């Protein structure tokens, strides 16, 4: 049995809403009529992770994570990008290029 978190591409600390959102994304990508085997795997993983006790067990005892420092850097970059860039920084960008 493969790791359901790996199947869904989630961190073991993902909450119910994240699990559901990711499941719906994958189902849109691999609908049962076009990718039945992949869908079955996704569905099985989703069914497993829907169990709150299972998720809690993972939170308590599972020290592994699919997260990493690169992903953390990506998150920070996204935060940078999402912020409105001050004019002074824009000017500095022009001068330092």
């Amino acid at each position: 049995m493969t790791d359901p978190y790996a199947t869904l591409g989630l961190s073991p600390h993902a909450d119910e809403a994240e699990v559901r959102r990711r499941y719906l994304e994958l189902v849109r990508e691999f609908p049962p009529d076009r990718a039945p085997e992949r869908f079955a795997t996704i569905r099985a993983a989703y069914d497993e992770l829907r169990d709150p006790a299972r998720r809690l067990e993972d939170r308590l005892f599972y020290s592994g994570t699919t997260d990493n420092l690169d992903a953390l850097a990506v998150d920070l970059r996204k935060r940078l990008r999402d912020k409105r860039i001050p004019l002074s920084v824009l000017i500095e960008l022009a001068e330092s290029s």
Partner: protein
Amino acid sequence: MSAKDRKQAARKSVFTPRQEVEHLLAKGRTKDAVKQAKIAFKAEGSEANRHLLERAYMHRVRQLLDESMPASAREVAQHLLDFGITHPEIKNDAARLLVAVGMAQEALALQGKDTPEVRERLVRQAVDHLVLHPEQEQVSLRDIAPGVRQVRLALETLETGDEARSLELLRDISRNSPLADWKLFVRGLAAYNRQGLDEATVNWNRLDPDRAPARIANRLLALLDPIPSAFPASLEIASFGEPILVPLRQFRDHLSQGEWDKMFRELTVLRFKLRRVDPRLAERLTLILLDPLIKRTIESPYKQAMALVKRFCEQAEPLPIDPHWNRLWALIWEGPQGNPDTAEEYWQRYLKDLENLPALAPEERRLAQALVWKRIAESYTVPSDAPDLPPGLPSPKLPKEEIEYIEERAVACLEESLRLGPGHRATYEALRNVYLRGNQRDQAANVSRRLLAVFPEDFDSLIELAEHHFRLDEPELALDYSRRARAVQPLDPAAITNEWTARVSLARKHALNSRWDEGRAELDAADALRSALKEDVLAVARRVAFELKAGEAERASKMIDEIVGRLVEPTPFWLALRIEATRYKLPKPEKDRLEAHWTTALTKKVRSETAGGLAAVISAYYKSEIDYPGRNQHLRQVTDYLRRTTRIKYRREDLAGVCRFLSLWPKETELLDKLVKRGLKLFPKSPTFLMMDALAAMRGGPYSIHTRKAKAQFEKALKLAEASGDPDEAALVPLLREKISALTDLASGPLGALFGSFPGGPPPQLFDLFSRMMESGDFDDFEDDFEDDFEDDFDDEFDGGDFYAAPAPPPKPPSRPKKPKQNPKPSTQRKKRK
């Protein structure tokens, strides 16, 4: 003359003034270069020296600009203009430089007689400069100044978030205006700010790459680049207050190199930097580091590992789910270097943490505590269950009282877990497994009933209870659970077999209570369930026994004639009927008559089919744990018969069945070895006999085990089984792989020494270990069982359990898949605590 003067005099004698200027420029000493060039020009006012001085001025202006001294740069540029620029190359460069220092008018004057293209370029450059530095607005560029102010205002408006107003300000700028690039830039920036990256790119792709808007746009697009080095620190400082990405990248490099000392030097600072941006980021950092930390502790010496964890707990951001690090310590102590007792102490502390943990909802806290109790229970595992030794090999046994203590503690922890979380299925299953491992079947059945009370459709529990009631000879209850199991999974082979077995058992019970119609109905229902077995010798034997019990001798006789006529060799049927006659408690004359048939059949010429059939019948009763008076005599009779078959021409399937039967009986290893050799000779491409030969090679114990031979035979068998089209042979593949893996581990690991050559025999501790392994080995267990069987004096009236001996019981369906454990189980055994 001082040393310095002597040095200068010496240099003067070496360099010409021109060389001196070049040297100073190369060294970046532009101020001295200008001075020296002036001296050279005064000494000789040649064209070359004039050019040299112009160049020196240019270098000086550029340097002052680079050093953010625009006023000084302007002053030097004015000196250059006063001196006059004559060289054409310098003229072009000087015009651009003058714009950059805010002297656009002078630049245009300098280029006055040149082409309009050059003038336009200078104007564009002046526009860019003024947008970026509005404080340097020149009086002479009055025609573009309003447009520049408009652009600047648009940028400032966009910074406040008013996109519409910003774009409105630039609406009137025409496509040919030197301000057009800024209009495109502002449009793109507005799109960029609202994540419209496509629209931003479309606008920015139209920018002149030599101009400032394009340079800014390119840097902004670089923010989307996955390489963090593309980020300007100023942007991070503006957004986060301090640079984080570069320290994070350094930290990542240390982690990938396993440089924990360097990581600890940076961890606290990085943690607080992340916290200031978002506390969850600091927690993420901790989560990311947990697994590498645990792995590192496994690899490190004990003291180093402990120091590592302590330091980590001091410096890392605590997780809301583990605020006091008790959970982490427990996980670490569960590891290979740990101690389950210490791990339990930390789990107990964590249980207290969980009582009021804000990170969990109140209903989650109880379940979390239940899960922790289950986790503690899992550490109470008898070593035979903990795979310290390679799989496939027996493990050393603990003393009985220690096993009892471990089981008691496991049960206590699991009961506590169920008290806190009565709806957690896996805990019931774990508790049932503890009881089953301890052979406490009644307790296991009770747990199954409790589980069914919560989950009425739990298939495994229904099957477990059905089998439990077969063993207790309670076919009515067994049938009830079997039918419920079939209702849950109608096509599951285990459910079908269970119901079929229950009906057959019930039929026998009806027969023993003279309820003939009910009994026949059950037999008919059983036949309907598994119609393929209707013609099987065991099924027919049971039917015949039923009719004989019912006094329907004629009907029974007809059935006997029919099957005897159909079978090539009826001896296995006579054995099955003789067994069923005992189990159905037929009258003595009837049993004697059937005994005569059976013993007469045994004296006939030996045949492959008969040997295979007899092995199948007797194995079926033995494997299903069906006991009945006279079973040992039948076992002896069958083996005596098989002893006569060592030279016959066997069929492959018959010989394989015979060997499998004999492998259950260690007293017959000599006969088994003979028949395995026969099999190897007759069927060299059958993996079954190769595997049995390999198992025989492992049988000898520490002094005579033939590892190399066993492994070679297993490997040959594996190749043949993988290529075989026979499902029985293909089914051997997993077992063969397990055996090969076990042998490889054993030979390469510390226990490999067992198989090396020790002068004077293996070291005592290894010998002792191996002896303990052999004590718990499969063969010895079977030997003990059979010795007991032979020594028992069975009561003739004994009525054993009423299990039906299915010819080939289908395998139990796989139970619910379990999640693989993240952390290795403790290798150290628990000490019994007072």
